[in-house]
């Protein structure tokens, strides 16, 4: 299959698609997939990843460079992904996505958000009789909106993801992850990776599907790598619950407020 350096019909790279679809770990998987696709690294049957020597040309991103630097000595598959997912390069990638307004700081939803909404509606109705309650209605409705929370992907980010057509194996990893399946085939098989190796990666909860034409129709990103969630405080390390998206940080959903 072709080696893509950009997701087709989008302005984002496969790594960025991976980040949008599954957070920093997915982006790391995507970078590794690209290196495998380009023949710059190889994986052995027992899951050891090593750099292919004398072919250090062909690296296209900072995350890929970081992975290769980490592979001066062979490293096992899962730690390669985990380390890249928590790297400074991955944080920079997250900042790029924020700068492109494809991601934002996620905000957790408060359990009682609907109470504020209900009060706001009641006050709004009451304003028909007592106009002064309109101020309270606006306040409660605004607070309900805020407490509903925000998913990490912006509308533009979701649109990019929906436009992705994962028709090569690197983008397939970006969208589905190495542990995913596509057309009844394990994604890892596209790279000849044994399942025993692929299954060392943490399983990511399948996101809710949307109506998009691409395989990435409604996936949602996890929070940022190594503090990429900004001030939300969700996940300051790659091994946190935020790692693969779909977490308590708000990843995995198609919609935000």
């Amino acid at each position, binding site marked *: 299959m072709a080696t893509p350096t950009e997701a087709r019909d989008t302005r984002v790279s496969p790594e960025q698609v991976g980040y949008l679809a599954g957070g920093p770990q997915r982006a790391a998987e995507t970078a590794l997939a690209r290196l495998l696709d380009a023949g710059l690294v*190889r994986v*052995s*049957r*027992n899951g*050891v990843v090593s750099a292919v*020597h*004398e072919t250090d040309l062909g690296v296209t991103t900072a995350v890929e460079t970081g992975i290769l630097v980490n592979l001066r000595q062979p490293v096992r598959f899962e730690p390669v992904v985990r380390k890249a997912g928590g790297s400074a390069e991955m944080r920079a990638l997250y900042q790029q996505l924020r700068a492109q307004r494809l991601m934002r700081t996620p905000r957790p939803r408060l359990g009682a958000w609907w109470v504020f909404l209900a009060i706001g509606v009641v006050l709004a109705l009451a304003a028909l009789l007592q106009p002064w309650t309109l101020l309270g209605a606006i306040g409660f409705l605004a607070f309900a909106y805020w407490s509903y929370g925000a998913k990490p992907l912006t509308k533009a980010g979701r649109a990019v993801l929906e436009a992705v057509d994962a028709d090569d194996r690197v983008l397939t990893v970006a969208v589905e992850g190495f542990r995913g399946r596509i057309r009844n085939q394990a994604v890892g098989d596209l790279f000849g990776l*044994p399942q025993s190796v692929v299954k060392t990666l943490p399983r990511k909860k399948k996101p809710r599907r949307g109506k998009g034409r691409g395989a990435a129709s409604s996936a949602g990103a996890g929070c940022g790598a190594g503090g990429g969630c900004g001030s939300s405080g969700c996940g300051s390390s790659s091994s946190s619950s935020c790692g693969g998206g779909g977490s308590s940080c708000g990843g995995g959903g198609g919609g935000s407020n």
Partner: protein
Amino acid sequence: MVGIKDLGVGIGWRSEIDLTVERLPGVDFVEVVAENLHIGHLPESVTLLLERGVPVLPHAVSLSLGGADPVDLHRVEHLGAVAEAVGAPMVSDHVCFVRAGGLDSGHLMPVPRTKDALDVLVANVKLAQANLPVPLALENVAALLEWPDGELSEGQFLAELVERTDCWLLVDVANLYANARNIGTDPERFLDEIPLERLAYVHVAGGEQHGDIYHDTHAHAVLPEVLEVLDELCSRVAPPGVLLERDDNYPSDTEIATELAAIRAVVDKHRG
């Protein structure tokens, strides 16, 4: 040739490149380092290759048959057990010693080419053969020095070894090339002197020049000059097998495939 069937073109199986070896086109046989395998749990990749019918030949590096120390029969038995586990038609080691006086050199040390050293080697080889279930082939090593007072050329030494032990020869053309560069061995004379009818198979490997020394690294590309030595050998005899050895700095699958194709081209050229 009795006992050694046509092997074709192969590659040294290493765990780091196991998936590469599995998917490379045109790998007719593989060689495994016997000391890296454990009886009872062969690597999944080796099992897979065996299931595909790919011959797997154990290659030892630690028998130290050229040494004055007694042969370690546990190592010989392990080599034999690996051969039986993979159904190998033969096993191999080197004409060298790797330990002496309780010290391990960590390197394949050349044997002095004297009658006395040959007597020791012959006795050790016969003992190993008596404890192995399959024929033994012995490989010429690359040397950075020659011991003083040598009485035989390398080819004569190997020829007499074969005559006295009935062992097979594993000719490493990269080692031969290295010796030509470093200690002045004449590859053509070497090939003239050894009994080519006892050739089991051939090793091909890469190396690198460092200053005045050519290092048989097995970690660099195969030089055209090494393929020329293979060509010279193939002009004299059709080798039962030729194997690419790579032990480190593994290149891309494409580069490995290209090296295998280059080896096959040399072999096929002489087979018409």
